[in-house]
């Protein structure tokens, strides 16, 4: 535990605080843009998966399965090297949010699909019989009912995505963890392992912990409510 209590190591962290702030900024930038891409993809493919068209369902299925069953690191490397060797390298951060967005989009699609499918079929039929079009049906009837089912798992997906920004390390790294690593191994800055990692870990924890505990609290209360409602009636299929 080199330098955990040495004031010199901690003061070095303070002197180079810009490095950590830059890393945090890059991580947040990647996470936010990736989140927007993931939401867009998730909504598109989630709606496709719940539509009646066989072809659209199949396309969405293939996307979700292929992306969810291969590691994000591999996708990121693939994207980065494929673009780099074909001569248009997009830069680390752009690769990061493209790869993370596509990866997280698959999870978003699954979450959104599950949310929409949690609404009983009669609701769709009732909406249709009242003359709602597809958009109106979704916007006024289905989304308001499914959003409470969608939000907790979606928050978990977002937490995972924030953690996954550390994947950027393998393509060169500009995010918080990579910069921390190059800080502790750097020629001029090296050595203060423990303080640097504590700072980096604390930052990640402070971002992720509120989100994940919010998600699990909401999930628990939702289940309790559901159990109360369905205690005596026949339970829904899982």
């Amino acid at each position, binding site marked *: *535990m080199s330098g955990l209590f040495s004031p010199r190591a901690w003061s070095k962290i303070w002197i180079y605080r810009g490095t950590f702030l830059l890393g945090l900024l890059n991580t947040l930038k990647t996470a936010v843009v990736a989140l927007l891409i993931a939401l867009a993809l998730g909504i598109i493919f989630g709606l496709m998966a719940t539509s009646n068209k066989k072809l659209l369902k199949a396309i969405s299925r293939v996307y979700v*399965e*292929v992306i*969810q*069953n*291969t*590691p*994000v*690191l*591999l*996708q990121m*490397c*693939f994207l980065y*090297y*494929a673009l780099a*060797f*074909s001569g248009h390298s997009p830069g680390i951060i752009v690769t990061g949010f493209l790869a993370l967005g596509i990866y997280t989009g698959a*999870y978003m699609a699954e979450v959104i699909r599950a949310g929409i499918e949690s609404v009983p079929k009669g609701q769709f039929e009732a909406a249709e019989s009242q003359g709602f079009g597809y958009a109106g049906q979704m916007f006024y009837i289905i989304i308001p009912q499914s959003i409470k089912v969608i939000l*907790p*798992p979606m928050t*978990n*997906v977002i*937490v*995972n995505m924030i*953690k*996954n*920004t*550390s*994947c950027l*390390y*393998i393509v060169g790294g500009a995010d918080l*963890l990579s910069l*921390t*690593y190059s800080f502790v191994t750097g020629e001029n800055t090296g050595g203060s*392992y423990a303080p640097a*990692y504590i700072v*980096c*870990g604390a930052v*990640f*924890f402070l971002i*992720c*912990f509120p989100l*994940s*505990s919010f998600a699990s609290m909401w*999930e628990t209360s939702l*289940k309790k409510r559901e*159990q109360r409602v*369905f*205690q005596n009636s*026949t*339970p829904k*299929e*899982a």
Partner: protein
Amino acid sequence: MDTLGGSLSMLQNPAIIRFLLQGVLFTLIISVAAVLFSIVIGTVLALMRNYCTSKTTRILKAVSVIYIEMFRNTPLLFWIFICVVFCPTPGFADRQMFGLSSVNNKLLFKAAVALILYTSGVIAEIVRGGLNSVAHGQIEAGQSQGFSMVQIMWFIVLPQTFRAIVPTLLSQVITTIKDSSFLANVAVIELMARTKQVLSAANRYNGLNSINVSDVFVLFGVAAAIYFVINFSISMTVRNMQKRRVAVKVKRPSVAAKDSQTGWACNG
């Protein structure tokens, strides 16, 4: 088209194929070992978090809560970096084994420790979901039969818990196989790292003296296909299992309400 031929010819090189397949083997061994160890640690943590609520044992609960939340809310790579620096290696890992040098084995051991630490936090939460799904009456029934708390856990609660969480644990195996690719960051010898190594030396093997886009496509394509086949077959197993459970539930509705509690824990 020329370069594609060169890239494909790499796949006919038996040395490369053996190199990659060994990587697959290491990926599988590391993941399965990590999950098995994590199940043990995770179960202990989950029991501590759920049942150590009396005044004297509350400290154990606090330890478990801190452990679980700490590992769930920080990236795996973070723990890999830390373990590579700080984790001590016992003597048995510090020699030549599995056709690897002692340096590689030490690295493998450290990275595997990081993976186990990280995964056990996730599995603890899964086990806890299973524990919560066991009706409280079971514990009371055990107590009325004169079982001690340890016996209740071992003979009554844990068997029911594990039956409930088998599908979720299997999905966690998928996640762990994917997570094991993070070990490529510290050049441990699993599939992802080996694919990268082959790519960086592709100019020597494809007979063209240069690395081309087609090499990237072929090599990462093969790696992705391998990962996909392994993970997809596991996820199909999980899905069949869940379908059968739903079928059982429909027949016996009273079971469904409490079984549904374990349903949500799986995500990447």
